[in-house]
Every structure is written in C-alpha cells, then in structure tokens.
C-alpha cells in the first residue's frame, strides 16, 4: 500500500529501510513525556477534552466470560454513555471478540447507534499464535459479521526473531482482506517488544504494510500503553506523514483508566503528532473503565462537586 519508501516488496528492502531509522533516545523520551504530563487542563478546555476523549473511546470488552447480554449492555452504553444526559457524545467504536460482532452490530443498529463502528480483534488475538489460514479466516469471519474495523495482532515471535518479512506479509495479507472500507489497526503489543527502538521499527513496519492505525497493546499484558511508547508511535506517524503524505492513526490501549491519564494522552497527541490527530478518525483510546471516570469528571464539571461511582453503570 504505502510502499513507496521501499524499492520493492522484498524483505531485504524492508530491512534496509528500517535500518535508516534513528535509534530512540529513551532517556530523552521519558523526560519529554514527564514534562508534558505536568500540563494542567482546566475549565472549558477540560470540558472540551472530556467530550473529545469520550468520542475517542473504543469501548472494549475482551473477556472469556463475555455474554451476549454484556455485549448488548456495552453497546447501549456506547450510544448513550449516560441516558440521563443526552448532551454526552457517543463513543468512537465498540471493540469485541470475533464471535460477538454480530450481536454488537445488531444491538447498535437497534439502539440508535447505526454510525458507531464495531471493531473486532482477529488473527488469533491476543497471542497471534496460529497459522496464516486461521488468521485470514478469523478476519473474513469478523468482516462478514459486520465488523468495520479490524484490530489484528502482529506475530511478535517472528518480529523478535528478525523475521520481519513474515510480519510484513501477514499485515499486508490482512489489509488486502479488509480492503478500503474496513479500517485495519495493527497491534504491536509493545510490552513484548522490549525496547523503544523495536517499537519505532514495528510502527514503521506496520505503516508500510498498510495498517490504518497502529495500536500499542492487547490489554492482556503489562506494561501496556506507557507514555514513552505512545510518544514514539506518535513521532512515527508524524514523520511517516512527512515522508508519504498519509496520516496513520494511533490507538493506545490498556492501562488508561482515568480522566487524568486520558488528558495526558491528548496532550501528547497535540504536542507530538499535531492537532490534526486530535480526532476520533486518527486517535482512539482502547478502554473499558475509562468511560466511567470520564462521565464522573463530566458530572463534576457540570455540578461543581465530585461524583460517585454509584451514579454510573458497573461495566
């Protein structure tokens, strides 16, 4: 897709390009994110940021114990996060396992959420340890059931073994199935990539292979979306845009539990990637507990006193 940076589609040319990437200054990265984390966002800016963050939430349930009832409840919450206050926007998407896609799609269509996309995790999420045929079938299945966004995992084992061509080809194959209309988010699982250099490399690899979004983590492994990792990925999409003119989205997922964390992410987006990325089409936050805290902060801004979790839903 975006392979104009590569001389051809061979592994050699991919490796050659990735070698040109500068190594990440890890100390500098943490210092910069720490400095940006001290920004304080108050009053009307905070109101604006809370609503933006709600629109960016990929409301997620990825449990072995997910039931159709839980998925339906989640969809209802995604459309009207707080039914007592209809001025609150809907979330960015609902993110579920493959077999729950149909249930989620129907629940959204019947519940006033026709334009909220359903995202499915595929390619043997979360480990990615399956044959290519299975991964392809997994993805086709999800799209057939109504998923308009696919969250795929990369083969971290292959990446760490230096088998970059394999990782590249897998992403490419899945993107071909997705086509133009279905958005592909590529999960790097940065917690398993060990270094920030690897994160930068994997980000470029995913963008070159045709991913529409690069996503930090599955949420099943700690550490997940740490600030330095998000920083490196935001730099990558910014530089990739300069090189190719294509804007790739970023989705941190895992560990973003409260409004303060979300605000810190938005500051990073604005300062590193730029204000163009402050939009649900280019930045999403994968979360489940975060939405309740955003709602409680919104109530606090509205009423002037701190809210209680008793006034938001449990899940």
């Amino acid at each position: 897709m975006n392979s104009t940076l590569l001389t051809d589609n061979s592994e050699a040319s991919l490796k050659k390009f990735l070698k040109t990437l500068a190594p990440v200054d890890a100390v500098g990265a943490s210092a910069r994110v720490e400095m940006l984390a001290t920004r304080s966002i108050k009053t009307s800016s905070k109101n604006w940021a809370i609503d933006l963050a709600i629109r960016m939430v990929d409301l997620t349930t990825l449990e072995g114990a997910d039931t159709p009832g839980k998925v339906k409840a989640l969809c209802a919450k995604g459309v009207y996060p707080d039914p007592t206050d209809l001025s609150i926007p809907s979330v960015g998407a609902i993110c579920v396992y493959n077999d729950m896609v149909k249930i989620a799609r129907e629940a959204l269509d019947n519940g006033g959420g026709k334009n909220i996309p359903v995202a499915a995790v595929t390619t043997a999420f979360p480990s990615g340890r399956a044959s290519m045929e299975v991964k392809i079938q997994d993805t086709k299945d999800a799209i057939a059931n109504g998923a308009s966004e696919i969250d795929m995992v990369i083969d971290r084992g292959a990446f760490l073994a230096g088998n970059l061509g394999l990782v590249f080809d897998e992403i490419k194959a899945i993107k071909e199935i997705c086509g133009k209309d279905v958005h592909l988010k590529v999960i790097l699982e940065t917690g398993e990539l060990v270094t920030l250099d690897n994160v930068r490399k994997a980000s470029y690899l995913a963008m070159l292979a045709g991913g529409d979004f690069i996503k930090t983590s599955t949420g099943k492994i700690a550490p997940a979306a740490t600030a330095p990792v998000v920083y490196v990925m935001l730099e990558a999409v910014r530089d990739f845009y300069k090189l190719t003119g294509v804007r790739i989205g970023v989705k941190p997922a895992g560990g973003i539990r409260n409004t303060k964390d979300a605000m810190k992410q938005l500051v990073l987006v604005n300062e590193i990637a730029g204000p163009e990325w402050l939009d649900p089409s280019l930045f999403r936050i994968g979360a489940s507990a975060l939405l309740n805290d955003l709602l409680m902060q919104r109530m606090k801004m509205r009423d002037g006193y701190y809210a209680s979790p008793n006034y938001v839903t449990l899940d």
Partner: protein
Amino acid sequence: MRIDVMKTYKLFINGSFPRSESGRVYEVKDAKGKFLANPCLGSRKDLRESVVAARTAHHGWSSATAFNRGQVLYRVAEIMQGRSDQFVAEIIAQEGATPISAKTQVQSAIDTWVWYAGWCDKIDSISGSTNPVSGPYYNFSIPESLGVVAIFADAKPSLLNLVASLAPIIASGNTAILIANEKNPLCAITLAECISTSDVPAGVVNVLTGKFDQFISWAGAHMDIDGIDATGVSKGELTELKELGAENLKRIYSFSELQSTKRMTNFMEVKTVWHPIGI
C-alpha cells in the same frame, strides 16, 4: 552541640505520607501562642484522593471477619501505648495541659480504642436480630457498614476525641477520612503513624490537615462520602454540612458520649434477609 531533626508534618493517604497536592502549609501555634508546627494545608484534590482510597479499601475491610478487624484494631492500641510519650508531649504543647492530665488523656484514649476494638465481633449480635414474621421464613436483620465516612475531629481533648470518633467507624467496617482539628492537628498525624505501622490496610484510614471551612464545603457536597461524624464542627457549620449533604442523603451526626455503640450503629445499614424454613 547538635541541631534537632525537626519533623515534617504530612498527610496520610492510601497508606503513604504525601505532602499536600497544593504544596501549601499553614501555621499552628501552641497554647502560649508560639510557633509549633507547619502542617499541610489539605486541598480539594487531597480529599478526592482520600475518598478514592477509602472507597477502594472498603470492600476488603468490610468483608474481613469481625475477629480479624478486632485484632487489627487491638494492634493499633499496642502501638499507641509505645508512642505514649510523644502523644503526651503534643497534648501539653497544643492544649496547654498539665503533664498529669495529658498522661491521663492518652491512657483513656488507648483504653477507648481497646473498648471499640472489643465491639467488632459483638455489635452484630447486639444490634442485629432474628425477627418473627407471619410465614414459613427465618428473618434476620444484620447491620452492615455504610461505606466511606468523613470525620471532623473535635479540638479538646484532642487525642481522646480522635479515638472516640475514628475507632467506632472503622470497627464497624467503614473506611474513614479523618480531618484533623484545625487548631490541634498534631495528635492526628501521630495517630496516622501508629495506624500505618500496625496491620490496618492502606486506605482504611486517611488523615488530612487543613482548614475546616474549606473541608466542610468539599466533603459536604462530595457524592461518594456516605456519612460524616461532625462532632468537631460548630452549629453553623453543621447546618451547612447538612444542607450540602442532602444531595446524596449523607448521614451526619454529632456525638457527646465518648464510649457509645451509637457511634458505630449510626454509620451502619441494616440488611434484612428472608430464608424459607426447611431448606
């Protein structure tokens, strides 16, 4: 000749001793009007952090067995005993008390703490009941903890009032945010040090220092505080607390007796259970 190592008075939130988020302190004077200490000027965010900590700790603390809670509380009394001299010195400085009356106060504070520790496994039997009903059912009334309770501690006698407010609230399974008396806050901070070195889980007790009038408006309106022991506030402040607390039906009480099971049961909810006979 050596220079004394002076103590930094800090808050106690979620098991650690942070400075106030505001970065500010205020001056406390001793009974003779001389400088005594610079405790933290607690802010609204400090209160919010405490409420989050207390709410998180509530499930574990309230579901611990009553025997366990009793033992943990008794352990606090043991640590307080070892810290007696420090309490005595603080009471003399703050309240201008004589050494003898300060010592008596510390002793009765420790005794009061033990008195409430003993109630942990007895309060259910005394205030719960089995009720006669017209049907083939057993019917039980069981008191359970209310949730998160804030305390406005009374000024004098400072340690005894602290204990008489805090001990019953945590003995009944609630978690507490103790707002130290504005004028006499030192014993509260030392008590926090006793609690942190006993087996009380983090977040069960949080201690804040600062201005009462500010804490009244913040705590009164906070929707996640379920009850308030307002023994230390003035009549006008009590009215303000009650007006603010009406939004989420806070239980707000002042007490005059130091040792009374009312201090426990007023912050408990009665759960009634029906169970069919013969099953």
